[in-house]
């Protein structure tokens, strides 16, 4: 069967069922009528859910390219603008192939609490039929491609830590291996059927993570810190100016991230439901409050509210609200966002300069720190008022203080897996293809030394 016909079949079925239901009603027994109507209703819901989920998948892809590519590339020096964009863009290709071959299967197969199996090797059996365990109203292929977009952006987030000094080949090899060794197992533990932390599909230590606070942001943020420490500082860090070459690009990128995040979080409802609306609202409120939190802290600290501070705060809020988004009220989202704005400002502006590591674009200070804060606060503010699937109560606000302990457990595993996995993979990659560019190439810039191009040729 061609790819087209896989998608066409349910559409034709839906049409057929709708016509059948309408035209045959008169001639049918009541039982048959009810059955036909039930099918028509299910088909209608599937059509609505699938439309939203395909839109969400596209929105999440837009977060990486151009969102993150612009956000990060504006923060580097002019000579590295293309190299930095490429580190995000290439993941759109590399992660996709890895996901098709084995990534999806390791994340969403069902062998153990820690990783899946190879039942979906080469996407075997992943077609138009829904997988009722994960999302019963949309084709499993939609679920697969939506999850793929998360696998694309997560390693791309790490690239902020080693910006302006990582070899292109080293970056591709490291990120590919990282997806299989760190990301897919963590996604399985939190979202896979039977995963250790899966709160809804038989996990023994339920940890709430609606859209990827642990899976995406803690793993990438902690791995980013390890990368920054392992690779060392950029040449001239602290003595030469390393100003962002275009905050204009970064503002555009941050705004695209904000919009794309609606797909990330509201899409994680896996349907066009009221829960999606709730996650959408929480996401937006979290980003807004965090923007104000960061700007307030910055103004008190250094006297001026900077544009870079505003957009950094927005991203910090979006990160922190990610695990909580489908579980908390709008008010809780405002609190979580505001806390994230203050906390990430402290991590990026105050703590980083005290510790002296060169996490160039603050992947750890924003994603690692914001993700950790969000994961813990999810255990405080999650409530079954918002998400009826929390049958035993949500977090502290529902009187379930124990959930905070589980959130710490999930967070700890994400930290350990991210840190150890990254360290091992960096060592191996370093031996095989090398990680850091030569001093000469670093001075020239990645655009020319890695890609043989320049981002801006104003003479031509």
């Amino acid at each position, binding site marked *: 069967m061609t790819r087209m016909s896989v998608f066409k079949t349910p559409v034709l079925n839906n049409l057929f069922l709708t016509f059948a239901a309408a035209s045959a009603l008169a001639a049918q027994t009541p039982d048959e009528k009810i059955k036909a109507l039930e099918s028509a209703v299910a088909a209608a819901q599937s059509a609505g859910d699938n439309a939203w989920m395909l839109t969400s998948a596209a929105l999440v892809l837009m977060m990486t390219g151009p969102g993150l590519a612009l956000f990060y590339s504006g923060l580097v020096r002019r000579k590295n603008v293309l190299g930095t964009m490429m580190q995000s863009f290439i993941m759109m290709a590399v992660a996709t192939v890895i996901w098709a071959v084995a990534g999806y299967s390791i994340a969403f197969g069902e062998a153990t609490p820690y990783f899946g199996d190879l039942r979906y090797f080469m996407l075997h059996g992943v077609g138009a039929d829904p997988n009722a365990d994960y999302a019963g109203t949309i084709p499993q292929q939609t679920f697969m491609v939506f999850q793929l977009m998360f696998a694309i952006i997560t390693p791309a987030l790490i690239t902020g830590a080693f910006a302006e000094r990582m070899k292109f080949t080293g970056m591709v090899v490291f990120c590919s291996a990282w997806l299989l060794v760190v990301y897919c197992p963590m996604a399985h533990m939190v979202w896979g059927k039977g995963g250790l932390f899966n709160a809804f599909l038989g996990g023994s230590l339920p940890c709430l993570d609606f859209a990827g606070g642990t899976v995406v942001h803690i793993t990438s943020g902690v791995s980013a810190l390890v990368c920054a420490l392992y690779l060392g500082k950029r040449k001239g860090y602290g003595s030469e100016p390393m*100003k962002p070459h275009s905050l204009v690009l970064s503002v555009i990128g941050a705004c695209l991230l904000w919009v794309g995040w609606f797909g990330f979080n509201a899409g994680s409802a896996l349907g066009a439901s009221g829960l999606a609306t709730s996650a959408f609202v929480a996401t937006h409120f979290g980003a807004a409050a965090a923007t104000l939190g960061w700007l307030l802290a910055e103004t008190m600290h*250094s006297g001026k509210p900077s544009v*870079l*501070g505003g957009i950094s705060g927005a991203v910090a809020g979006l990160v922190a609200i990610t695990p909580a988004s489908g579980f908390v009220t709008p008010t809780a989202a405002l609190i979580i966002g505001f806390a994230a704005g203050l906390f990430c400002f402290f991590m*990026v502006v*105050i703590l980083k300069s005290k510790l002296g590591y060169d996490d160039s674009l*603050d992947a750890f200070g924003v994603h690692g720190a914001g993700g950790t804060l969000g994961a813990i606060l999810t255990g405080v503010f999650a409530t079954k008022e918002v998400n009826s699937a929390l049958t035993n109560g949500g977090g502290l606000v529902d009187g379930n203080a124990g959930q905070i302990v589980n959130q710490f457990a999930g967070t700890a595993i994400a930290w350990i897996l991210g840190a150890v996995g990254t360290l091992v993979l960096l060592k191996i990659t370093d031996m095989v293809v090398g990680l850091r560019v030569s001093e000469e190439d670093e001075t020239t810039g990645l655009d020319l030394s890695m890609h043989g191009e320049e981002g801006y040729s104003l003479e031509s």
Partner: protein
Amino acid sequence: MKKIEAIIQPFKLEEVKEALKAIGVDGMTVTEVRGHGRQKGHNEVYRGQEYMVDLLPKVKLELVVSSARLEEVIKTVTAAARTGKIGDGKIFVYDVAEAIRIRNDDRGETAL
């Protein structure tokens, strides 16, 4: 003939140009440059990283005039470019040995 090299604040360029036009000086060459004299630069802060920017954007104006008009032109430029604050810039004057119009080989002051 004298060459006047005036380094001025970029935002004063239009005023200086208008004032020179008013006294009949038409030819000039303008370059965007960076530099500093006694004027201090400013600080920029990006996520807590402070950068001292001491080379500031300036505009360099070059024009060649007959020696007879030198003082008049200097007065015009200083009056138009002055704000009275540090950073207004400087004027340097050089002797010019020869001027040649490429189009028709005019020489000396007729070439100006």
